[in-house]
């Protein structure tokens, strides 16, 4: 069968290609619909929030209310300070996890000792054990140590979320690096510490970016720890958002939607900023050089 000659820039259209494109479009509609729905909800006024789907008068007031710039305070939530707390606590938690976790991951990736695997598994188990299991004792301890409702306390407890993530991700990066690179540095006359900083560390930079971002997002998304271990001083975005649902009084779905969309922005912006590293980071080690 003779194939039609294509003009430059023209693409051959095949049934399979069309089907694949259709499925992709359908998937995007499916995946993005909740966000679209939430965006529409955030533009509705109080009267219309539960009564219509698409026919309504759009308004930005919900965003202004959430950010507290409008005179009328419907709720006692200080959303701006919650965002600030979240940014500080999550950045702090990620930083602490990196400072402690990078050397830990290096050690775990390089040295096998009796029980090293169990130790790593133990650490991972913090991730899949339900947080509810530890929350009651933590609550008591936090009151006792005066860490309740403080940013420092939040940073500490978020280590349960971020540290295993950082150590596990970076351990596999260090394992992918040939130990002979550091051995070469040792024979070039560098100490183990200098070999780590000048040879190993620069090579796992994409991994550090990926681990840091994931740690930040996981910390940002955490709900149960700030819910139980903080009150008004160190409340976070996740907790603040739900307060718009009003405990017992009127539920402001429109405000909740607006707050949730605002709350998504910081991790999104962060992801876009380090996207260049991230793509390399997440695919690192997939292809043997």
């Amino acid at each position, binding site marked *: 069968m003779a194939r039609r000659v294509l003009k430059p820039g023209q693409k051959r259209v095949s049934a399979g290609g069309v089907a694949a494109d259709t499925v992709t479009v359908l998937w995007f509609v499916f995946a993005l619909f909740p966000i679209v729905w939430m965006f529409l909800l955030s533009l509705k006024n109080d009267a219309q929030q539960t009564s219509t789907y698409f026919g309504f008068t759009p308004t930005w007031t919900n965003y202004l209310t959430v950010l507290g710039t409008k005179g009328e305070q419907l709720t006692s939530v200080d959303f701006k300070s919650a965002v600030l707390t979240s940014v500080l606590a999550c950045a702090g938690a990620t930083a602490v996890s990196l400072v402690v976790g990078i050397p830990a991951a290096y050690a775990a990736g390089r040295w096998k000792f009796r029980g090293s695997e169990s130790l790593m598994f133990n650490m991972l188990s913090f991730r899949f054990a339900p947080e509810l299991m530890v929350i009651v004792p933590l609550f008591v301890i936090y009151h006792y140590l005066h860490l309740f409702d403080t940013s420092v306390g939040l940073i500490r407890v978020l280590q349960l979320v971020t540290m295993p993530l950082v150590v596990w991700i970076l351990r596999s990066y260090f394992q992918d690096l*040939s130990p*002979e*690179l550091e*051995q*070469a*540095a*040792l*024979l*070039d*006359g*560098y*100490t*183990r510490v*200098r070999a780590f900083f000048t*040879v190993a560390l*620069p*090579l796992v930079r994409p991994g550090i970016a990926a681990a840091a971002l994931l740690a930040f997002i996981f910390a940002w998304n955490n709900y149960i720890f700030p819910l139980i271990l903080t009150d008004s001083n160190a409340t976070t975005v996740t907790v603040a958002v739900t307060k718009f649902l009003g405990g017992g009084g009127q539920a402001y779905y429109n405000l909740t939607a607006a707050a949730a969309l605002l709350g998504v922005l910081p991790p999104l912006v962060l992801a876009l900023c380090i996207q260049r590293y991230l793509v390399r980071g997440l695919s690192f080690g997939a292809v043997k*050089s």
Partner: protein
Amino acid sequence: MASLTLDNVTKSYGRTRALSDVSLAVDDGEFFVILGPSGAGKTTTLKSVAGLEPIDAGTVHIGGTDMAGVEPYRRNVAMAFESYALYPQRTVYDNLASPLRSGRTGTYSKAQQDRRITEVTDTLGIGHLLQRFPRELSNGQRQRVALGRVLVRPAGAYLLDEPLSHLDAKLRAAMRAELKQLGAMSSTTTLYVTHDYQEALALGDRIAVLRAGRVVQVGTPERIWARPVDTFVARVLGQPEMLLLPATVDSGRIRTADGAFDAAAPDGLDRGDVVLGIRPRALTLGERETAVTVRGTVRLAERLGRVIELTVHSGDTDLVAVVASADAPAEGSDVTLSVRPDEVHVFVDDLRWGSVAGKEDRDA
């Protein structure tokens, strides 16, 4: 420059014994080759000397100093890794400058670094690659950079792990010839690991043959070639491999079961079973006085340039002979092969006893 001494070095990985009682003494300035098949423990030996692998038992001395507990960066040895181990994030120039910048191999001004690097890269033919990254190089080029990172610096000893294995055949031959003439190399103690017997014979002042973590034989290239201590060493050296024929000594004759080989047994050999070893290049065409002869039919004649490789069927065995191609017989023709009695090695219980010409003293 320093001498190297290994005494009963033993090393295991879990239950696998990598090195068993390895003892070697390398003189100051010597070019010492470790030859062995893969998995024999060659790389482990080098890493033990460098201090990169802790040893379970035994001692390593460099320049007469016990290296127990001495960190690799204090041992003053340089190593070329088989995996190259080039720093991927640095250019060739920075890779080569790395040992000069550490401060432990001496202090070099920028100009001195440049001069040393230029010297080495000119010799290795990689001068045009200085600004490239390792990922932009071919394997052969990477290997030369790895070698350059060793040669660029002074060291007590150079440890080279298969430094020519990834070069193409022609370049390898050229580099082999050049290696020994390199100024740094000729004056620095070098421990050179290879599985290529030609490299070992061409380069080594002495050779140690390693098998399954044990030293089988240590000696000069001539000696290891002429008097392999057992059939393993005999087969490791030479391509085509040495022919090994099981034979029996009986009433003054030494003969193979099919009767193809039949010669007078040397004095002192009156035991039952032996193995005869003949190098394919020791066989010549035609009958000769005082020589042992074997008759057979040419099954295959492979022309390899100046020489021709004959597969001769005799009795129940195929013998391989490498002869000058000028007088090569046609396939299917009957030939007589002869070999000097002192080139028919006799192995008893797998160990070299001597040759058909007579018993040899081990240490002679």
